[in-house]
C-alpha cells in the first residue's frame, strides 16, 4: 500500500522528466539509424580501417601525438620560465629606472601575445620573424618556441596572482636574513606561489593542448593534421574527424583527472600541515 502510493508520488512528480528522457533516447536511436543507413557507415568504416591500418595511416597519427605532446609540454615549460621571469620583474618595487623600463617591456610583451590570435603569432613567427633573424628551425621546434612565448604571457599573469597570494612576511623574512630580492623570490616566494597556482597551470596545459591543433598551418604534423591528411587522402572525412574529436576529449579528460587528483593531494597536504 505504502509503496504503491510512493510509486504514484514518483510518477506524479517526475512524469515529465521520464518522458523527456525517453523522447531523447528515441530521438538518438532514430538519428543513429538514419545516419547509419543514409551515410553507409559500414563502407565508411571500411575506408577508414583500410587507410588507417592497412595503409599504415596510424604512423602519421603516432608522429602527430608525439608532436602534440612535445609542443604542449615544452611550450608549457618554456611558458613557466618566461612567465615566472615576467611576474618577478612586475613585482619588483620600481625604484630604479632599469626596473621601470623592464616592466614596460614586459607589459608590451604580454599585451602583444594576449592581444593577437595564436594562429597569427604562429604565421608571423614561422614565416617572417624566424627567417628574419636567420633562424631556420624545423616546424615542430618553431611551434614549441612560439607556443612557449605565447603561454609565457598568460602564465605571467597567473604567476603574478600566485606571488601576490604568498604572505608578504615570507619575502620580508628572507630579505631580513640578508638574501637578495631575486634569491628570496626564487627560493621562498615562487615555490609557494607555484604550489598555489598548480591547478590553474593544469588548466593552462589543457588549453595549450587544444590550441596546438593549429600547428598544421606551418606544416607540423600533429593529431589534427594526421586526421586531416587521412581525410583528404581517402576522400572520407566523417570517421577521421569524429575519432579526432574523441581522441582530444579522452586526452583532455585524462589530464583534467590528473589535475583534480593533484588538487586533492595538495588540499590534503594543507590539512595535515
Amino acid at each position, binding site marked *: 500500500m505504502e509503496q504503491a502510493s510512493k510509486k504514484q508520488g514518483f510518477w506524479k512528480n517526475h512524469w515529465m522528466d521520464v518522458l523527456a528522457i525517453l523522447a531523447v533516447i528515441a530521438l538518438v536511436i532514430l538519428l543513429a539509424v538514419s545516419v547509419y543507413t543514409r551515410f553507409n557507415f559500414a563502407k565508411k568504416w571500411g575506408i577508414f580501417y583500410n587507410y588507417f591500418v592497412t595503409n599504415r595511416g596510424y604512423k602519421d597519427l603516432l608522429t602527430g601525438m608525439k608532436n602534440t605532446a612535445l609542443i604542449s609540454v615544452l611550450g608549457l615549460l618554456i611558458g613557466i620560465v618566461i612567465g615566472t621571469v615576467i611576474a618577478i620583474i612586475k613585482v619588483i618595487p620600481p625604484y630604479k629606472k632599469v626596473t621601470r623600463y623592464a616592466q614596460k617591456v614586459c607589459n608590451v610583451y604580454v599585451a602583444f601575445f594576449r592581444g593577437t590570435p595564436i594562429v597569427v603569432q604562429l604565421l608571423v613567427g614561422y614565416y617572417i620573424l624566424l627567417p628574419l633573424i636567420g633562424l631556420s628551425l624545423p616546424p615542430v621546434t618553431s611551434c614549441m618556441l612560439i607556443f612557449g612565448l605565447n603561454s609565457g604571457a598568460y602564465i605571467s599573469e597567473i604567476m603574478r596572482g600566485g606571488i601576490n597570494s604568498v604572505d608578504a*612576511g615570507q619575502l620580508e*623574512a628572507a630579505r631580513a636574513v*640578508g638574501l*637578495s630580492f631575486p634569491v628570496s623570490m626564487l627560493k621562498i616566494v615562487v615555490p609557494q606561489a607555484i604550489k598555489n597556482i598548480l591547478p590553474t597551470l593544469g588548466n593552462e596545459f589543457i588549453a595549450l593542448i587544444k590550441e596546438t591543433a593549429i600547428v598544421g598551418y606551418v606544416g607540423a604534423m600533429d593529431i589534427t593534421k594526421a586526421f586531416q591528411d587521412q581525410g583528404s587522402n581517402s576522400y572520407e572525412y566523417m570517421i577521421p574527424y569524429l575519432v579526432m574529436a574523441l581522441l582530444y576529449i579522452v586526452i583532455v579528460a585524462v589530464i583534467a583527472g590528473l589535475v583534480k587528483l593533484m588538487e586533492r593531494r595538495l588540499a590534503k597536504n594543507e590539512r595535515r600541515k
Partner: protein
Amino acid sequence: MNAENKTPLIEVKGLVKRFGNLVVLNGIDETIHKGEKVSIIGPSGSGKSTFLRCLNCLEDADGGSIFFGGEDIADRKVDINKHRRHMGMVFQQFNLFHNKTVLENIMLAPVHLRIKDAGGLFASRATKAAIREEAKKEAMQLLRRIGLEDKANAYPSTLSGGQKQRIAIVRALAMNPQVLLFDEPTSALDPEMVGEVLDLIKELADEGMTMVIVTHEMGFAREVSDRILFMDGGVIAESAPPAELFGNPQNPRTKEFLSKVL
C-alpha cells in the same frame, strides 16, 4: 652594561618616514650601543614598529640617516643585503619559510651567503658540501639549545606558535648578528606560550647580545632592558633606564600611557 665602555652600533639621525601624507616618524635621533638592550614602548600608531623596520631598511627611510657598520644604510645605493646579515630580525608573525623544514629554515641564509662568499656557482663541490655540513652542525646546535632538535625535519605548520617563534629567533641567530631586532615577538602568541619565548630572549640578553625590542610586555621590558624608549606621535618622547621611566616618568604623555597600561 657599564656606562663607560660605550661603542655606538646603530646611529640614527633625523629619521623621517611617511606613508603617503601620513608622517609616521618625525625626525628620530637615537644611538644604540653595543651590548645594549633597548625596549621601545608606546601607544599603537606611535611608529614603534616602523622605526624598528627602518633600522634594517624593511621600510625605506624618507629622510635622515642610519649609520651601521660604517655606512649610511638609509642611502639606497648602499648594498643593504651585506648589512642585513649582521642584523637579525624577529617578526610578530614569526614568518618561518612555509616551504622549508625547520632545519632548512635555519640553514638557508648561512649556507647561501657563505657559498656566495666562497665564489657562488664557481665554488667547488667540496667547499659547498663543507659549508653545508658546518651550517647543519651549527643549526642542530641551535635547535638543541632550544630543545627542538627532534623537530629538525618538521615543517613549520606542524609547530605551535611558541615553537615557531623560538625557531625564528635561532634562525636570526644562525647568522651571528651583531644586533637582534624584535618586532612585538610575543603579540601573536597564546598566553601560555609567551613565557618560553621571553625566557629565550632573556637568555640571549644575559649573554650580551645587543637588542632592540618593540613590546607591549611592560614587565618584561622593565626586567630585560638597559634603556626604554617611549614613542609617541612619531618621535621618541622619553628615553630612560627602566627604573627611572617606570618609577618617575618625566614626560606627561609617558605618565598618561603608563597609567593606562600598568
